[in-house]
Structure formats: C-alpha cells, structure tokens
C-alpha cells in the first residue's frame, strides 16, 4: 500500500515540477489530438450539416451509418490505418507509419463520425425549428446553412469537445499506427499502458492525473459553454 502512496506522491511531484519527459508526452498528445479534431471538424461539420439539410436517396441509411460509426472500435481503426499506411499498403509510399501523422489520421477517423453525427443532430433540430421562418424569407441554401451553424455554434462546440475527449483518451489505434516510440510517437495513453506493464507507476500515475484533469476540464467546459449559451441566448 505504501508503494502506491509513494508512487502517487512522486507522480504529483512530476506534475507540479513539470518533468521534461512528462511535458514532452503531454505536448505531443495535445498536438496529435487537437490536429485530429481540427481535421475531423473540417470534414464532420459540413458532412453533418449536409446530411441534415440535403435530401438524397439513402439519407436515413447515412444517418444510421454516422451514428453507428461513433462507436468504431479504436483497435480496428488502428489496424485499417496500419494496413493502408504500411509499406505494402496503398498509401505506403507516404512513409508516415509510426509517425505522429499516422496517429493524427487514425484519431481523425475515430473523431469525425462523432462530430458529424452531433452536427447532424444539432442542425436537424434547429432546421426543424427555423424552417418555416427561413422559407418565409426565401433564404437560399448558403444563408440557411450559415444561420443554422451560427445559431448552433455552442452545441457544435460541445460536439468538438466530445471529439477531443474521445481522441485524447484513445489508446488502441495510436499504439498500432504510432508504435509508441520514445520521443517520437509516445503519447499519454500509450505511455501509461507501457509504464504500467513495466511496473513504473510514477510516470503512469502522473500522466493519469494529467489525463483525468484534461477529461474533467473538457467536460466542465462543455457544461459551462452550454449553460452560458442557454443563459445568453435562451
């Protein structure tokens, strides 16, 4: 038991003292996850809005697919991205396997359906509410989309935060495509897995503390943004 307390104390010291290894790992984790969310948002926001607003054959199937894709198993995504990026794979020439770029690709694929599905739901709800008003003004497609995206911006931001939460806590995909290489592709979750298996609980616990703080902050931000928006705009 005392070993556990000692590990916790050391972990806190590492966090408070901004241990260089810890900082490097946290920084890479944030860089990878934020990049993945950015890319996923660039695809997911317009895709979700399009599925919500454009009528096309198979739309219901697309909605089901988007919702189902929110639960994609990370290891399967990691495996598929690995196969695509491996030397013999169709994208092998890019030479990005076992680099942060590969990790960004894998996380983007995991996060994109979350952002797209939440965007679709948000835009769809708002569209149902605003439709007659916008029709009565003769608003065009772009005017409609910009109105809905602007008015749904706080809920969409919550969706982005949910995507970031998923990306930063994910381990299965990044360990497959990143390889968990020290000083290259080692992020918080993969380091925790590795150090725990080695019995080095100090760094694992320190990273665990940072990860929990990060997750709690993201959730708190989502709640606060929602409350503030509801208070400000009704």
């Amino acid at each position, binding site marked *: 038991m005392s070993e556990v307390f000692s590990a916790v104390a050391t972990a806190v010291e590492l966090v408070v003292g901004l241990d260089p290894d810890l900082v490097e790992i946290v920084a890479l984790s944030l860089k990878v996850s934020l990049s993945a969310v950015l890319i996923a948002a660039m695809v997911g926001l317009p895709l979700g809005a399009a599925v919500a607003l454009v009528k096309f054959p198979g739309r219901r199937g697309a909605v089901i697919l988007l919702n189902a894709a929110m639960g994609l198993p990370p290891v399967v995504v990691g495996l598929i991205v690995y196969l695509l990026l491996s030397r013999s794979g169709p994208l092998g020439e890019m030479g990005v396997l076992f680099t942060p770029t590969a990790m960004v690709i894998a996380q983007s694929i995991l996060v994109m359906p979350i952002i797209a599905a939440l965007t679709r739901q948000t835009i769809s709800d708002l569209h149902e509410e605003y439709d*007659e*008003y916008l029709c009565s*003004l*003769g608003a065009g497609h772009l005017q409609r989309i910009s*109105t809905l995206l602007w008015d749904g911006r706080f809920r969409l931001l919550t969706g982005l935060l949910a995507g970031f939460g998923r990306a930063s806590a994910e381990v299965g995909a990044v360990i497959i495509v990143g390889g968990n290489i020290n000083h290259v592709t080692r992020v918080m979750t993969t380091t925790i897995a590795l150090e725990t298996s080695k019995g080095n609980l100090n760094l694992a616990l320190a990273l665990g503390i940072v990860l929990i703080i990060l997750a709690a902050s993201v959730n708190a931000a989502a709640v606060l943004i929602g409350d503030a928006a509801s208070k400000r705009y*009704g």
Partner: protein
Amino acid sequence: MDERGEQRPVMPLEVSDLSYVAGGKILLNKLNFRLEGGVRTVILGPNGAGKSLLLRVCHGLLQPGSGNLSWAGRTPSQAGRDLAMVFQRTVLLRRTVSDNIAHTLGIMGVARQERSSRIDTALKEAGLSDLADHPARTLSGGEQQRLSIARARVLRPRVLLLDEPTSNLDPGATAAVEAMIRAADADGTRIIMTTHDILQARRLADEVLFLHKGRLLEHTVASKFFADPDTSEARRFLLGELLE
C-alpha cells in the same frame, strides 16, 4: 408606406378554385374569393377549418394542389418580399432582439449602413428599444410576438399575414399586439390574419372569411357577418357552439 414614405396601392388577392389535398384528405376545398381595398381581413373558423393552411398557401409556403392564387397578377413566389408572415408559434433566433431583426435584413440583402436605422425604427414601433440587447428567446410571450411582427414589418411588406398572433397571450399583451396590427394597417399594409377568437375578430375585422372543414362558407363585411351570418355553421360558431 414604401421606402420613400409614400402610400402604396393595396395589393389585391384573387383566389380561384383553390384546393389543397394531403394524405388523401381535402383540407381546402375549391375556394373562390377576391380581397380588394384597404381592409383588414380576418379568417375565422373552428380548429381544423384550414385557416393556417390557407394563410401558408397565400404566402407561398405551401403549394396548392389545384386552382390559382394571385397577388395583383403575380404568384406568391413572384410577390416575394411584398409578403411577410408572422407565425402562431414565434420563431426567434438564438440571438439578441436587434440581431434577430438584423438577420432578416441581412437575408433580404439590405445594405449594412441602412440596417441600423431600420432596426432602431422597428424596435421603437414595437416598444422594444430598451430590450435591443436582450436575448430574444428570454422575452415574455407578448414581447416575442411583437418582435416577430417588428421583424416581419422591417421588410416593409405590402401584405402582412398573421397566423393566430395572440393565441396564448394575456389581455395586456394581446392589446399591444393588436395596436401593432392597427399601426401596420394604418401604414397601408394589407392585413390578413387568422384567429379563432371571436371577440378579437370583432375588434379587428373589416371583412371576414369564415372557413369550416376546408370550405369557404362566408366572405362578407364584418358588421354583416357578426349581426346576421348567412350560414347555420357561422351562426352556431358565433354562439360558441362546438362545430363538428
């Protein structure tokens, strides 16, 4: 009034053999009428008579299954911004009061430098100047409906279509909304509104269209309608009986 402040001719509406069918049910049944002159028209009738539906068809939000409808010889889509609609359930954007009006002006392509003065005028007419920076959706029901009317009027439409504009409002809020409707009428805007409130119809109507089960049973001046309606359905409706 037009943009130069001059009185505009009131737009006549001609409806001939207009029907609307949904799900195999005839909801509007071969309506024929013509609205002329600067009078306030109230569409009366029990729930399910087709009042709101007729208003939406007049605006062009819904296309009739058959028949013709023309505003001074133009289809509703050609009449465009000459027609403005106020809905029973207020639809306000998640923005401030003034930004709700600014949005409408923006959609209609009004120049930015012109928007500010038009927003100020609209809010003043609605008695909402003090609430310009408040979130629109936190206003009271009456204030929200006044904002909806102000937002519709800011486009300077020639016709204002109002669907049950005071349902669920208290008497004070109803009076404020009715004052705005009278002001729009005095300004030369044709008013066509639906209501199931007989007392409100008595206060506001110059002429009445009485609908029942999608059929136009009466189209007459208000004084005649309330004193001596032609149909037994209208008589029973005015007596407060529940029509099947």
